[in-house]
């Protein structure tokens, strides 16, 4: 009996709204009026966004030229194993009907190339790429070592299959004068890739570095990947900041694409002289050095020129999706309103009776 008051007191003390499930709340119910309001608002927002997106997507220009078939002879030439290292070029003339204003980006696009295969995507060595250890090739199967047991640099399937066509865009002002359109090979990659994830061993003499000349012991020499015509230190001999692992084309290639059809940035228009406003209309041609085999996996490749806006390229999908969503939302809200009014009338007539 003497314990009881204490007991009660302790119950009172630790009694809280939480324990009695009586916390202060606000309730959320879907009443017709609230939902209608939200739906109409969403509809308006989506329609507006959709229109803006469609308009801006239509303001971009894009031109895509598939050169798999045009350069079929090169492909055929390559399929013959004896002509493996023969260079084959092909030229694709095209006419640009309207001028492409602003920044123009050049992409290469591959069809049916699975960069997202599980084994493929794993076959790379980050330690090697960051310049820490040339011999770190454990993850690079099946392209780890060459036959003479020297590490492949860069190792792995991704690096081995790097896109190695050379695409040069020329502007044919008239039948005789051909200007090479200046393309920039910088800022094609994420900043972090270029400055954090990819590093050369030391910037003084790349070739020596990779050839292992610094080290007297033979095992430090490295080999180029089997598919490459030239070693990593010869990717861009002119610009040391674009050479070795820091080569923009290489870094771009090393970021695996999500789908079997993908495009990768190849160059930006250098807006100087003639091209200060973009690409003027006229005759152009792509001069392509054909190296990259696609017929073997029944793939295709093309080259794309495109301008961009704040919302990216000229895909209408996002704009259309917004518009459709907005329209559907409005449709739904009209339907709901109809039902709501119908029920209300029913209720009213019920009361009147």
């Amino acid at each position, binding site marked *: 009996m003497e314990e009881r008051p204490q007991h009660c007191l302790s119950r009172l003390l630790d009694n809280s709204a939480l324990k009695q499930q009586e916390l202060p709340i606000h309730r959320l119910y879907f009443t017709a009026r609230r939902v209608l309001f939200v739906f109409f608002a969403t509809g308006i927002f989506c329609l507006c966004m959709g229109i803006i997106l469609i308009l801006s997507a239509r303001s971009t220009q894009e031109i895509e030229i598939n050169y798999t078939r045009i350069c079929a002879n090169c492909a055929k030439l390559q399929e013959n194993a004896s002509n493996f290292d023969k260079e084959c070029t092909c030229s694709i003339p095209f006419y640009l009907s309207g001028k492409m204003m602003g920044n123009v980006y050049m992409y290469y696009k591959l069809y049916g190339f699975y960069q997202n295969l599980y084994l493929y995507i794993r076959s790379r060595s980050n330690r090697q790429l960051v310049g820490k250890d040339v011999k770190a090739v454990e993850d690079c199967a099946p392209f780890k070592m060459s036959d003479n047991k020297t590490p492949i640099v860069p190792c792995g399937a991704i690096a081995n299959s790097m896109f190695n066509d050379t695409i040069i865009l020329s502007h044919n002002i008239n039948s005789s004068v051909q200007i090479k359109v200046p393309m920039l090979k910088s800022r094609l990659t994420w900043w972090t890739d270029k400055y954090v994830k990819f590093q050369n061993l030391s910037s003084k003499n790349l070739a020596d570095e990779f050839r292992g000349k610094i080290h007297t012991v033979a095992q430090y020499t490295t080999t180029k990947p089997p598919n490459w015509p030239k070693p990593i230190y010869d990717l861009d001999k002119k610009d040391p900041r674009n050479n070795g692992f820091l080569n923009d084309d290489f870094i771009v290639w090393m970021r695996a694409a999500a789908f079997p059809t993908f*495009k990768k940035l190849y160059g930006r228009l250098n807006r100087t002289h003639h091209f200060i406003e973009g690409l003027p209309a006229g005759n152009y041609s792509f001069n392509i050095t054909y190296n990259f085999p696609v017929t073997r996996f029944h793939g295709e490749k093309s080259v794309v020129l495109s301008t961009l806006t704040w919302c990216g390229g000229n895909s209408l999908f996002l704009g259309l999706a917004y518009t459709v969503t907005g329209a559907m939302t409005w449709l739904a809200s009209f339907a709901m309103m109809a039902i709501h009014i119908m029920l209300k009338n029913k209720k009213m007539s019920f009361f009147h009776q």
Partner: protein
Amino acid sequence: MDCSLVRTLVHRYCAGEENWVDSRTIYVGHREPPPGAEAYIPQRYPDNRIVSSKYTFWNFIPKNLFEQFRRVANFYFLIIFLVQLIIDTPTSPVTSGLPLFFVITVTAIKQGYEDWLRHKADNAMNQCPVHFIQHGKLVRKQSRKLRVGDIVMVKEDETFPCDLIFLSSNRGDGTCHVTTASLDGESSHKTHYAVQDTKGFHTEEDIGRLHATIECEQPQPDLYKFVGRINVYSDLNDPVVRPLGSENLLLRGATLKNTEKIFGVAIYTGMETKMALNYQSKSQKRSAVEKSMNAFLIVYLCILISKALINTVLKYVWQSEPFRDEPWYNQKTESERQRNLFLKAFTDFLAFMVLFNYIIPVSMYVTVEMQKFLGSYFITWDEDMFDEETGEGPLVNTSDLNEELGQVEYIFTDKTGTLTENNMEFKECCIEGHVYVPHVICNGQVLPESSGIDMIDSSPSVNGREREELFFRALCLCHTVQVKDDDSVDGPRKSPDGGKSCVYISSSPDEVALVEGVQRLGFTYLRLKDNYMEILNRENHIERFELLEILSFDSVRRRMSVIVKSATGEIYLFCKGADSSIFPRVIEGKVDQIRARVERNAVEGLRTLCVAYKRLIQEEYEGICKLLQAAKVALQDREKKLAEAYEQIEKDLTLLGATAVEDRLQEKAADTIEALQKAGIKVWVLTGDKMETAAATCYACKLFRRNTQLLELTTKRIEEQSLHDVLFELSKTVLRHSGTLTRDNLSGLSADMQDYGLIIDGAALSLIMKPREDGSSGNYRELFLEICRSCSAVLCCRMAPLQKAQIVKLIKFSKEHPITLAIGDGANDVSMILEAHVGIGVIGKEGRQAARNSDYAIPKFKHLKKMLLVHGHFYYIRISELVQYFFYKNVCFIFPQFLYQFFCGFSQQTLYDTAYLTLYNISFTSLPILLYSLMEQHVGIDVLKRDPTLYRDVAKNALLRWRVFIYWTLLGLFDALVFFFGAYFVFENTTVTSNGQIFGNWTFGTLVFTVMVFTVTLKLALDTHYWTWINHFVIWGSLLFYVVFSLLWGGVIWPFLNYQRMYYVFIQMLSSGPAWLAIVLLVTVSLLPDVLKKVLCRQLWPTATERVQSPGYQSTCPSAAWYSSHSQQVTLTAWKEKVSTEPPPTLGGSRHHCSSIPSHSCPRSRVGMLV
């Protein structure tokens, strides 16, 4: 006896090789019996260590792991983990290993801690000192060293260290008092008796010289059953054989009271004590939600396997073209080329399984467990269910069944102590037709009440007066009540008026009420001393009766008897029991008048007992003694033999009279039952009481209403017609009506609807349950069930405890498989409490046995309303959302992964990063749903209490039906399609940045994942009706956590990882405008259909709950509710005042009238029809 000896001998030698023998022989004090006695095979007994712990220090890890992996889910995850370790799979073993490790560790720590506590308790028990006698000396030893055969001394207030045969006590009469509070919760003092021939051994030396053997049965868990016999050898005489029964047995766990010390010999030790045998007996109950969950799991397992199969097959179809199998850019290693195709295919299948295994999440089990465990605290914390009177709150013995409380379709309730107070009050007695009411007595003078019944003569004759006194003496003597007296005062101290100071204790409250009632009528029971019962009669003289035999009460006989010898040497047998068990044994007395009175009282809801007596002559008594002795000594079938003996003894009685005791209804019992019935729950009353009493209680608590048509299925009717005819007739009556009625049986509270009440008694039930010879056993049962189904209320009276369980079982396994709930307070309800899906114990006066065996215990019956209608409803809503949501969010999670396989050449490339795979279920989406499942209240507590019909909205597992499950799964699929293809079309074929840079596969995965986390969390936010600050904190907090985590995870090159694929992926993604737009769009598109569906369903087909949720309802109704509760309060206080202003009973005034007539006035008219 010889027979049984031979039989035991045969048993022993036949079963010689086996260790198990059906009885054991114990040498008291390890003294060999004299050479003449029979030999026995020594048995090995365990020592007195109690081991309740499961593990030891050494076997903890292996044993615990083994136990844990025996659960199917854990085993499944272990297999997945091992597969990940062995074969080369796209996801790291960490993703499934870490959660599994977490789960296993947490469970192991919890179980280890619990086991450590048990070890501590065991050690404290096993090491506590015990006194025992060795060679006539008192020795102290640790309890665990005690062995069978040791003689133990126990002092007052000590607990017995093992099961003992009571040899002697310091009390002269060889008795001791014991409370068994820790065994069965009964705090009353029970008297135990020392063996007759050893009770003289008072000192250590004496007891050390005792030479005896005990034969008894092997240990069995029944606390109240024990048979054995003791052979006491002495140098002079032949060995004396005495029977031993449960009254000689002192159980481990019981406490010695009011006795200085006792000696006893250990017969069952350690894990063989009855207490230890009673430890593990509860079976695991599983809730309906758990069953649905398992069904869903199987569906998902099938989905998982088929997904893996489809992908494996497609992979090989796709790869059948060689340029795809091994394109030049993705060459295989030499070892891969040489692998067996089938082995490769199997490995691929396993790899796909691993890739998709997250569809069955480990975390769901953890969350469900946590939700149940934490959620059950809301019941214990609930102050509405706290009873200030007793200081008891609700108890939760298992948290596995919380949601089952929201699914109850049938309630089986006990009457006494559950619906009624079990606070007995002696109302009246009827002696040969004269009615005596204690309250009209002044100073011991009886004024026969004249209003009740036509009396034979108003002033009792001399003969009548004699009978009257005999009746009172019978009531004073025929009971097992103990008197709790203060030790300070000794001797016959009680004056007639001071008699109230003594307190009567008994296991049955009826007996106390009777003895107290008789005390008010002038006869006071003083005490039992040296086998003499002392009573104080009206003239203040002490009468002493020698107590010769007690034929104790049991629920089959429904009566008890005592044989006493008066001071004048006359021997009487007094018998007291239910009318049905007394009347057939009566040959004399005014049976008809008494029967009429008994029936009248029963109709008023009073509990009646009849009293009869028989005068015995010495020879008869000796015959009886012999009969009883023979039955008591028997080792086999003692129960049966005793029952036969009792049957023989208790016959040819003379009826004296009848008593009536009132048992008041518990407060708000009627209100509760009405609410439960409105909630669509069928309430059945199962009682051992007689039909009329029970029916009256049913009327009083509104189980039967005025317009209820009662159907009877009783022995009386079956005697007239055959069971077959009765059943068919009843079913015709019922079905004819239900044929014309429409389906709104559920809302069948409308006044014009005829509702039926069924009354059935135990005998009729057993006839129905009995399998027929001609094989048509199911026939009657089906018919009976059919009738029951169309009755709104069923009353089963005259039920034995096992029959209660039988009824529950019958309903439980009928073809709809309804969820049953049993509620009761006494030991006789335990069987049905254990049988029903949910067992609820009322923490009542008849001990705590029901509460201990129940799943939940509540202080009062009225608390059942909140328990079911509020807590049960909430728990069900919460857990069903939890289950559905978990499956939904994992469909959202894994289906894009599945779709991605079609775009990556079925190469098992994952869509999401490892960190996301691991943390999705553990941290990004776990807390909101856990908190939802703890806090959600789709409507307010007061609304649920006010409107019981809302309970029907969740009946029959409504939220976990296949339809709902498929809806959720389809919603998950739709959302997954939106995430995946939305992101796909945004990314495909175009640049999504303004600087021309390109995103890779991880950015795509991260975009899908981000949309998913937001959608899934916001979906829950839309489902949450009850927004507390905790919900806000958790929902917005976990979204914020996801963003912060992703920023950190991508913002740093983590030194311990050998990949940097996520480096800056998230940040780059956020730097792109289209990605933001895509996230907003896709989240909206995923959520819109669900919102639309909700709104449309709400408008077109609203459920009751949804109607209540609309704001119009809430603005009008609370005032009405306030009024109703207010008016209720007013009447309640008025009633209380009436009670308090009433004059105290001793001062006279007819309380009988003012309390019983208003409450029973309406039922009486109904029952009048019935009888």
